[in-house]
């Protein structure tokens, strides 16, 4: 599988960008020249220059530094939220798929119900209740994103559990736990990982949208979404405050989508053949 991923240029490209982003996020304090929250009214709304490669915002903060720090938040939210979704999804999905019957119908009915809600509505409603901040946004995005993964792993497990090697394992006397963790999840996790990668892209977009609406990451914490929100206010005089964060979101989401697409092709080569 690794070989197939590496043969897939777009996946390598996507993974490369993601790696770069992670490095940027980790070394943000080293890369950023300025304190992202440092307000300096005198240098407000300067266009891109050597001093400020991406210009400054309406409060004179260095946009480049803010964007660098924002990448931390984007990746953090993307990975942690989806990690949470992955955990919940895999547990629920594998229990439902493996045990079937009542367990299955209760869990999947619950997932069905959750899936009926437009995700953004649900997130908004919860935000209205618990208030917007990074932690809440992360948890909410995670807890509203597990259903797809649960369905995927359930479907995988439904088909995997009839595989002969599972029967063989049972004939050898393996426990449920052994079969689920040693045979079913390792073999069924592929599509879920693909969905995880796409999910990270989705979570980053969702966070950006929430922050853009003022319901996500709150200033002065920089997030691409709330930089865009601030940029919207200077539409017409500070094009850079709009263009750059938008591009950052686009490139990041693109990278994750490319990787996801590549992973999917690697797992499921017949579609492309």
């Amino acid at each position, binding site marked *: 599988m690794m070989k197939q991923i590496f043969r897939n240029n777009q996946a390598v490209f996507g993974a490369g960008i993601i790696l770069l982003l992670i490095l940027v996020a980790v070394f943000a304090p080293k890369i950023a020249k300025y304190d992202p929250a440092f307000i300096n009214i005198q240098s407000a709304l300067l266009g891109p220059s050597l001093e400020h490669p991406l210009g400054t915002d309406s409060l004179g903060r260095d946009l480049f530094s803010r964007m660098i720090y924002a990448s931390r938040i984007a990746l953090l939210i993307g990975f942690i939220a989806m990690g949470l979704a992955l955990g919940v999804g895999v547990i629920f999905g594998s229990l439902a798929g493996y045990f079937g019957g009542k367990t299955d119908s209760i869990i999947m009915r619950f997932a069905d119900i959750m899936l009926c809600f437009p995700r953004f509505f649900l997130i908004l409603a919860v935000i209205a209740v618990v208030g917007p901040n990074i932690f809440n946004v992360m948890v909410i995005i995670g807890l509203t994103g597990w259903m797809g993964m649960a369905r995927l792993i359930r479907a995988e497990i439904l088909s995997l559990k009839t595989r002969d090697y599972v*029967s063989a394992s049972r004939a050898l006397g393996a426990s449920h736990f052994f079969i689920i963790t040693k045979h079913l999840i390792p073999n069924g996790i592929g599509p879920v990982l693909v969905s995880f990668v796409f999910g990270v892209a989705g979570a980053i977009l969702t966070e950006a949208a929430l922050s853009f609406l003022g319901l996500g990451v709150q200033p002065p914490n920089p997030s691409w979404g709330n930089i865009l929100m601030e940029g919207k206010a200077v539409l017409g005089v500070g094009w850079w405050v709009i263009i750059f964060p938008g591009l950052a979101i686009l490139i990041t989401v693109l990278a994750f989508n490319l990787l996801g697409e590549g992973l999917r092709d690697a797992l499921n080569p017949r579609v492309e053949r």
Partner: protein
Amino acid sequence: MLLTVKNLKIHFRHDGEIVEAVRGIDFAINENEVVGLVGESGSGKTVSALSITKLLPKGDSVVTGEVMFGGKNLLDANEEEIRRVRGSKIAMIFQEPSTSLNPVLKIGEQIDEAILAHRKISKKNARKNTIELLGKVNLNDPERICASYPHLLSGGERQRAMIAMAISLEPELLIADEPTTALDVTIQSEILKLLLELKKELRMSVIFITHDFGIINKIAERVLVMKNGKIIEEGKKEDILSFPKAEYTKKLLLAVPKITIKPETREENPAKMGRVLIEAKNLNKAFAIEKGLLRNTGEKIRAVVNVNLKIEEGKTVGLVGESGSGKTTLARLLLGLIQPDSGKVTIPRRVAQIVFQDPYSSLDPRMRMRDIVLEGPTIRGASKAEKVSILKDVLSKTQLDYEERMKYPHQFSGGQRQRIAIARALAVNPKILILDEPVSSLDVLIQSDILKLLKDLQKTLSLTYVFISHDLRVVEYMADEVAVMYKGEIVELASRDRIYTSAQHPYTRRLLSSVL
């Protein structure tokens, strides 16, 4: 000469690599003759056939050489010219009738459009034609078939409909690509009979692609043997079957299991008579049918009905039946993988293991060979040292290379995988092995290797086998006793010799008569 193929070469581009699938073959087909094209999987027989009417996927393949038909090189023909040949002059039937028909169109429509694509007649006349054709292929109630979607028909009916479609324009050449492989034996022989009748009636030539010399024997006049993209032997059927020249052909022919009740070829098992190891009493198992929109219909399939079975230690019981007869369900019941609805299985605990048909799905693709083989000992909490010795022991018993223990299943061939599956079962010192079609998905040459291995193991380890197969020839080779299953019931249970010489039940006889 109806068709002449000269120096046909086919290359595939695959992930940047170029693979030569067919390496320059020449052959010719005469009018009104049936030519069998034999070879193992991957020998290039199907791609050769597909390339005749340029049906290989564009872009991925390069075809060179010459395919002369009706005075023209088909390989040079443009889209429209080749389209006119397809269906009307050269028709095809494929292996898998369930996927070869469009699921969202009715049978009638699919045949109509074949006719309308080549003949300028009204839809109404086309439909009349279609109904006639469906009658011709011995389908009952052609009107009903016409108005049915493919999924509502049985496999045999679908393949008949495919044949009806193929002959709808009275082609000069019919290419049949393993048309009976996916069907049960009894239906197989009916379809072959039908094809021969149609060939006579329509005076067409047939290229019959198969891996099975039994079928060749029954249908072909001339035989082409393919191996690794080349034709290695060609000749009249009788000559090839009786006096094969090429080593490969000889091997292929030898590997075909035959029903040969000759006592001297068999070693009698020095059975410790009488000790019953497995006993099943009045077993019943039914499954609910699930349907699309309305999930549970309450209808049930009775997979195993009132089965009684006793298996003595050291013996091999062959369990024979067509697909859906309940063999596999019975095996799982015996093993305790599923619970019966009623009845009882008596079997010593933890001594039965199972080997499955498909060596691809029976090994966890994400585990190393070592871990697969040692799964049983791991579950039973064996120590590291114990595991190493177990591993070495069972690998040598199954003739596997200890050095390859870190490889993953996909790095092994089909036969090796089946050995791994056997090794896994042996690793826990079983007394009983349930062999669920253990050789059906293997090529003939490997089949005989595995069968031989199983026999040897039985002797050295004094194992008891439940040998499940649809193939009477294989069962004949392996079993001491044979149980014939039909629709969930054991309709006949007797010693091997009695079954093969004087079967009582009509179904058993029908089964035997369709063996080629």
